[in-house]
């Protein structure tokens, strides 16, 4: 770990962290502000949803969510939060080392008296700090939104905490998987398409698994591993899947270190 790289990386990332955090806070407050209307018209809502095609309801998990309860509605909101978080973390993962190479500053950094382990660790910690800050904002805005719009309704605090806490583990998955992919492909020239691809791809995999039953691939996506409807319904994580998630993250991290240590930094042209 090298303090100056960490400081620089965090400084560069701060603007992006602020934008993502503000967007997420807005999303949570906006969705929750509609909750009183949804809850008041619960019967009407159910009737309307019943007219949707079953496949569509399955794709959005609407058949398992009870939008009239606070946690049911919050989990619906949190699905969108997850999607944003996935894209943010994937972007950071893909960009962590590749931006440096695409802009040819890797030569500058790696000709300094620092080891690659120090470089990677400092960059990772800076990115994780950014993600933790984003999560803090999500926590705070969730509590504010809920206290503003819950009215007289009660909810289980523990389940809410489980949902919120899943955020950072969920993001670490995308960060490390994005990073390992960026080291496996020859050169990432533009981070955004990769980040969007990984984030949306993982979401779609989980969404379609609701429509098409019995595919194993869905187990690999964090949207399934931290399935909001499962957490709300059981008041607990689906532990085997959470371990699978953590396992993939750890393997991706270890592989990234190995690949980066053995990497030939591409030269100009």
């Amino acid at each position: 770990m090298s303090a100056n790289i960490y400081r620089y990386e965090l400084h560069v990332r701060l603007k992006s962290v602020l934008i993502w955090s503000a967007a997420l806070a807005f999303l949570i407050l906006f969705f929750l502000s509609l909750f009183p209307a949804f809850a008041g018209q619960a019967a009407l809502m159910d009737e309307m949803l019943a007219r949707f095609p079953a496949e569509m309801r399955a794709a959005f998990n609407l058949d398992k969510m009870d939008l009239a309860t606070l946690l049911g509605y919050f989990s619906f909101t949190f699905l969108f939060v997850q999607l944003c978080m996935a894209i943010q973390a994937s972007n950071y993962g893909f960009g962590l080392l590749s931006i440096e190479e695409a802009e040819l500053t890797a030569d500058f950094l790696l000709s300094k008296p620092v080891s690659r382990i120090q470089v990677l660790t400092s960059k990772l910690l800076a990115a994780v700090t950014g993600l933790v800050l984003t999560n803090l904002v999500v926590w705070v805005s969730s509590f504010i939104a809920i206290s503003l719009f819950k009215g007289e309704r009660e909810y289980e605090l523990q389940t809410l905490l489980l949902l919120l806490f899943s955020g950072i583990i969920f993001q670490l998955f995308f960060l490390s998987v994005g990073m390992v992919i960026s080291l496996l492909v020859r050169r990432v020239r533009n981070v955004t398409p990769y980040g969007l691809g990984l984030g949306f791809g993982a979401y779609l995999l989980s969404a379609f698994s609701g429509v098409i039953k019995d595919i194993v691939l869905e187990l690999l996506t964090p949207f399934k591993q931290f399935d909001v409807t499962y957490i709300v319904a059981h008041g607990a994580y689906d532990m085997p899947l959470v371990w699978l998630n953590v396992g993939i993250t750890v393997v991706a991290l270890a592989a990234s270190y190995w690949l980066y240590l053995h990497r030939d930094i591409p030269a100009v042209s």
Partner: protein
Amino acid sequence: MSIIEVSQLTKYYGKARGIVDVSFGVEKGEIFGFIGPNGAGKSTTIRLLLSLIHPTGGKATIFGKDVTTHGPEIRRDIGYLPSEVYYYEGMRVIDLLKYSASFYPGDHTQRMHALAETMELELNRRINDLSYGNKKKVGIVQGLLHSPSVLFLDEPTAGLDPLMQRKFFNLIREENARGVTVFFSSHILSEVQRLCNRVGIIREGRIVEISDIRTLQQNNYKKVRVSTDSTAPVVFDMPGVTHVQAENGTVHFFFKGDINTVLQRLSALRVTDVSIEEPTLEEIFMHYYE
């Protein structure tokens, strides 16, 4: 013992050749020129020495330490000026120099300002807005500000105007006078001749010659062109003459040896034009080809 010791260093990028079996040594306090055409493997060699890339075979040591295992330790005392200078988006010159200095123990502010002044570099400009030559200056200051004892310069003069080139050469000579060892890569023979004590010539990934700059010049071919009025081409058939080409009363040839013999032969002729010049680098390489 040599400061830089390279033995049988080989690098393949997949199947593509980088360098093959490169061996040489650079002594403390010398300016070693590394010349060769583009794509010969100059940058590959420097990038291997800085462990930006990993060798396929062979080994290299700097300060007696293996570059692949002691990289960070070695790089503490190395300055590197890459051939193309790109820096972080949106940074000002001063930010970058401070970031660079923060990697080395001690305070380098004073030296940074002195170097920036010598190279006439404006510290508050954004790096993105700088011209190629000015970016190069940022690279020069960045590579020198921590007073390294070994300098790697990869085509350092490209983009600098002649005045700046001279200032830069003076700077390098000053550093060298303080005992700094300089590894200077270039494809321009004349600048290497101006600055270096010894040169290594690399072609298609292999070292073709390592010699003292003086011996290289003495052994060197001169390019001679003679024009006469007579339609019959003049015959130069003395030892040391090669590559004779004659057309319309003009004779081109390469000559190696005592130039006086050519001059004596010329004095007997009635010539309309004569030129005797240094061969270009490419022409010297033709010599190493044979």
